[in-house]
């Protein structure tokens, strides 16, 4: 009998919580001039940088958190259903704009906001066309636009050619279930021939497979290059360990990876990308342009990042002229 009471009480409390929950946030959103809901798909360094940059970008345009902006930040912990619930909550709270970080969150936000007039700004969506967020001509499919973190693959291949003039085979480790990786890989394969390089791919399905796959791949290639594959990037330390043991250079895809010990990257700075996104959001919030009138953007200019310490370890000399071109050059390897 007692236990039943507890059960009923628990469920009653939960339901009450739910009801009062909606109320309190409704009243709060009235205070600031703008309310933005940020829905981030997962806890991840690059995505966090995107968010940071986004807020900074808004600030540069005069929309500052705590001043005239209220931010509601929710993380879906990599669950698609939760992502939808988050954006539904934002829609019912009537936020002024939803920012979706990473593809599933962007898609969920678009889906939730479809029948409202709330604009959606996304970032870290590698292929907006594949994700059906733009039509075949590259125009937004609704009140939604943002930035893509498409990799500057051409520049990356050019850089590999320059640093390793004798390299023939480039290995790529990727997760078969990450749509972004699959599409980046096919671009790599398409372009590699132009630089007289051959791509050797190795797909994994989970973190547990990485050690073995990396070991196998390292036996066949002259260097590795990374995508923005979540599973692989999370295990970067393992991969670098194995590669260093065999003196095989690993190229990164963004600044954080170079800090961790990748030789070099012609890559993205997610903070920059976020900033760019924030400025787009500001335009929409201020009513200068509608989201549907803005085409999605990619990072204007990829930056070169090199790690001279990694080069030294590998016994590779990077041409001085190249180092001087780098946006940033690191002379130490930071622990992850």
């Amino acid at each position, binding site marked *: 009998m007692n*236990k*039943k009471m*507890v*059960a*009923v009480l*628990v*469920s009653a409390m*939960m*339901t009450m*919580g*739910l*009801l009062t*929950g*909606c109320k309190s*946030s409704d009243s709060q959103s009235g205070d600031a001039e703008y309310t933005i809901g940020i829905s981030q798909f997962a*806890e991840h360094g690059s995505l966090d940088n995107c968010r940071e940059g986004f807020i900074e970008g808004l600030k540069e345009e005069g929309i500052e958190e705590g001043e005239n902006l209220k931010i509601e930040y*929710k*993380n*879906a*912990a*990599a*669950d*698609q*259903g*939760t992502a*939808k*619930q*988050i954006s*539904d*909550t934002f*829609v*019912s709270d009537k936020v002024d704009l939803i920012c979706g970080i990473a*593809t*599933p969150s962007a*898609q*969920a936000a*678009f*889906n939730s906001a479809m*029948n409202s007039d709330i604009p959606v700004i996304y970032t870290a969506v590698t292929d907006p066309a*594949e*994700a*059906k*967020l733009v039509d075949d001509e590259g125009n937004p*499919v609704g009140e939604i636009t943002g930035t893509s973190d498409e990799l500057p693959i051409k520049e990356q291949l050019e850089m590999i050619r320059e640093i390793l003039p004798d390299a023939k085979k480039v290995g790529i480790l990727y997760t*078969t*279930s*990450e*749509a972004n990786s*699959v599409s980046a890989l096919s671009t790599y394969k398409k372009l590699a021939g132009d630089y007289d390089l051959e791509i050797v791919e190795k797909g994994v*399905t989970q973190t547990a497979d990485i050690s073995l796959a990396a070991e196998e791949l390292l036996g066949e290639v002259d260097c590795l290059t990374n995508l923005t594959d979540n599973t692989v990037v999370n295990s970067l330390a393992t991969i670098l360990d194995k590669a260093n043991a065999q003196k095989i250079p690993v190229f990164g895809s963004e600044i954080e990876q170079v800090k961790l010990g990748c030789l070099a990257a012609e890559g993205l700075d997610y903070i920059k990308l976020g900033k760019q996104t924030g400025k787009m959001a500001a335009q929409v919030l201020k009513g200068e342009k509608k989201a549907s009138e803005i085409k999605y953007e990619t990072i204007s200019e990829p930056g070169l990042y090199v790690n001279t310490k990694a080069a030294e370890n590998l016994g590779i000399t990077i041409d001085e002229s190249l180092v001087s071109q780098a946006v940033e050059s690191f002379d130490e390897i930071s622990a992850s």
Partner: protein
Amino acid sequence: MNLIVTTVEQGLIYGILALGVYITYKILDFPDLTVDGSFPLGAAVTAALIVRGVNPYLTLLISFGAGVLAGVCTGLIHVKCKVRDLLSGIIMMTALWTINLRIAGTANVPIFGEESIFDNDNMNGIFHGTLASYKVCVIVLVIAVIAKIVLDLYLKTKSGFLLRAVGDNEHLVTSLAKDQGNIKILGLAIANGLVALAGCIFCQEQRVFEISSGTGAIVIGLASVIIGTSLFKGLTFMKATTAVLIGAIIYKACVAAALKFFEPQDMKLITAVLFLVILIVGMERKKKVKGNA
């Protein structure tokens, strides 16, 4: 208000999944992990079909059929190859991961702008103006209630009786000159059919197929079943299937509440604690007839 509608929507979709889990967990006493694979299976089949312009209502049936197949496979592995129940489910779940990826083509298939069971001329004609925001909720409710009623009716047929008997007392089924293995396969088939049906609806509501959507589906299903059956144990007039549907809505409400008040990364822990509390409070372990003759 909107939030409550969304919660009910999501709850009912997972409620259909929970009906499937109810069959395996409560009736068959079979911890079936296939669910983590058959839920996205329904979604993958749906996305693949809708992209090719198949009638969205037809996808409900085809997804159900795909789920039935998955369930039959788990059953065959368990019954014919004599693999333990938990492992059979794990094997099938693992296999389905690849199968789902093959069916869908890629890990993420958006179906924005395509016709769906929610978005077509008929439904948009019926639900317009203020009704529009209840559209999804009403459609899901109708499907969930139909699924529930059909399941209730089935459990009262001769075949349904046998299904209930096999989870209760395998010996009796054998005594009745029936192969208990076949009955288990039948139960797993129906259960996974329902799970895939839920996946189909989920995919159309989310307007996207995502390979990871099945992760943790079994936990949601189990939680819903346990919450529902424990909370409404005393109410004899309420059918277990109804309790399960309500259980799923309560679970989703808890998730929504947790999203409001806690950090999202704490969600899984909160789920686990909630799960444990309900289990202890409910403390109704299945009294199964065991032992040899």
